Structure formats: C-alpha cells, structure tokens
C-alpha cells in the first residue's frame, strides 16, 4: 500500500447523509434534517424486557404508542415485542443489547433510516397532509410514537414536544417524504 492510501480513499468516498443540504418548510412548519444517529431494531420476549432495559439504560415501553428516554437514548414501542431504539451519535447500542445476556434480536439500522424534524404551530397539520393518524394532543401526546404511513411510504412518528415531531423514514424514501412534508408545510401556512 502506498503512503497516500488513506487520503486517496477519503477523496473518492465521502459519506453524506441521505438528505444532506435539504431545507424547507413554511412560516407554520419548519423542516430540518436530524443529525446522524445510531438505531437498532429490537425484538424480544416479554420476560426479557427488564434485562434489556437495564442493559440499554432506557426502559423499553410495554404500552402501545409510548416511548421513553434516558441517558441520551430513546426507546419507541412499535409492537408487542418490537422496539426502535435511537441514540444520538455513536451510542454502542448493539453492544449494550448484547450485554443484557438474554435472548433477543437486534439489527443495526442506523443507516437504513434517516430523520426529519418537523416543528412549529403547523407541524401536526404538515404531517397530516399524508398521515391518517389523529395527532391532537389528547390522542397523540408528547412522547407518543407510532409506526404509520405518510403518503405512499412507511414512517415512524415520535412527538418530541407539543409542536415538534421526529419523522423516521427509510433513507431511500426520504426524498419523497421531505418533498411531501414541504407541501404539507405550505398548506399548513395558508
């Protein structure tokens, strides 16, 4: 290997986020791309939830449509035995799950998903442009989360504040999701 190998490599293969450079929204709903995050898709039996929660440092929620956050990690209930765990930056989620010592399935989906942050008084209206769920604060309070549909693609929606949501979307669908959110944000400002 030649001395300049490392530099040569970085010149031809720079990693970019799926939505790098995107920005959009309206006066009612602001759209931002979320910083890179680590994510695992986690499946486990009910009797092993306690051990996994301890190992991950965040309680895996067992109530439908709820999430919990602790130690920079957020665990989202997706199904009766299925969670999406998100950690800002590089959080070592796979190793933490392995340290639980109990039977589980964890798949690193950090780069399968990307996320769009939607905020502002029209945030719920912008998302409802393509999502059929009731996003009133009564039906979908802060911390509520759900896998659902947005237009023609599947998303995982998390309400992070009264007027702010995180939209997790598969990277190959993110261009479409961002475009439709832009239209929803425009409609929300009318």
């Amino acid at each position, binding site marked *: 290997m030649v001395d300049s190998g490392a530099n040569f490599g970085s010149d031809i293969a720079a990693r970019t986020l799926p939505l790098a450079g995107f920005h959009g929204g309206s006066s009612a709903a602001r759209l931002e791309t979320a910083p890179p995050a680590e994510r695992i898709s986690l499946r486990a039996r009910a009797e092993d939830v306690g051990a996994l929660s301890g190992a991950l440092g965040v309680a895996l929620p067992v109530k*439908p*449509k709820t999430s919990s956050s602790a130690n920079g990690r957020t665990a989202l209930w*997706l*199904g*009766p035995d*299925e969670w999406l765990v998100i950690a800002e930056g590089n959080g070592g989620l796979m190793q933490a799950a392995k340290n639980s010592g109990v039977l589980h399935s964890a798949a690193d989906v950090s780069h399968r998903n990307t996320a769009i942050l939607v905020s502002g008084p029209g945030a719920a209206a912008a998302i409802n442009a393509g999502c*059929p*769920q009731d996003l009133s604060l009564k039906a979908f309070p802060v911390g509520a989360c*759900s*896998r*659902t*549909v947005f237009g023609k693609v*599947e998303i995982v929606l998390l309400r992070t504040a009264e007027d702010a949501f995180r939209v997790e979307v598969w990277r190959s669908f993110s261009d479409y999701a961002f475009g439709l959110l832009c239209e929803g944000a425009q409609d929300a400002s009318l």
Partner: protein
Amino acid sequence: MLLIHCPYCEEDRSELEFRWAGEAHIARPENISAISDEEFAEFFFLRNNEKGLTYERWRHIHGCGRFFNAARDTVSDRFLMTYKAGMPKQPVPETGASEKTVETYEATEGDAR
C-alpha cells in the same frame, strides 16, 4: 375513512395501515404428509368466500406489524369485531350483527336486469 380496531395497539386506526390476510381459523392438518391430494387442496386452496359474516385474518402491517382476526360483514364492509391471533373463533356481539345492511346488489341493481 374506514377505521379498524387493532387489538394490539388497542385503538382504531386507518385502513391504510392494514393488509388483508385471507380467511381465518384454517388449521393446518397435523398429519400433513399423510393426507390425500384432495384433502390438501381443500386445506390449501379452497375458501368459503362467504357473503355476509366472514372471519378473516388481517395484519396491521404499517403499525404494530401483528396479525389478528376480524369478523367482517362483506356486504356492508363493516368490521363487527377484532381479536388477537391464537384466540378461538369469537361470537359476534348482538348489536353489530343485527344491524340492517344496505346497498346489496339486489337492492340497488336488481331491477335493472
């Protein structure tokens, strides 16, 4: 919008999140290697395709991902009840079943023949 009650999410959700998954309560024969071709065809291919009350499997594919069972009236497209997979066939509650359905073929198109 047609709403379907998911027994795992414990709430009504849009039909857009669901996918139909065929007739419910069809048990796989335990002696599958011993049965005749006719018996296999009966189990594997043939369905009742009931008009009216029917028991079906549905999947909340864009939600919790789980399969569950539903009792549905195929004439009115009304979901009478849903219950978790693995439970035995449930009796339909009286109130839903006694409701008169409208818009049958005979009622709307019968005279046109």
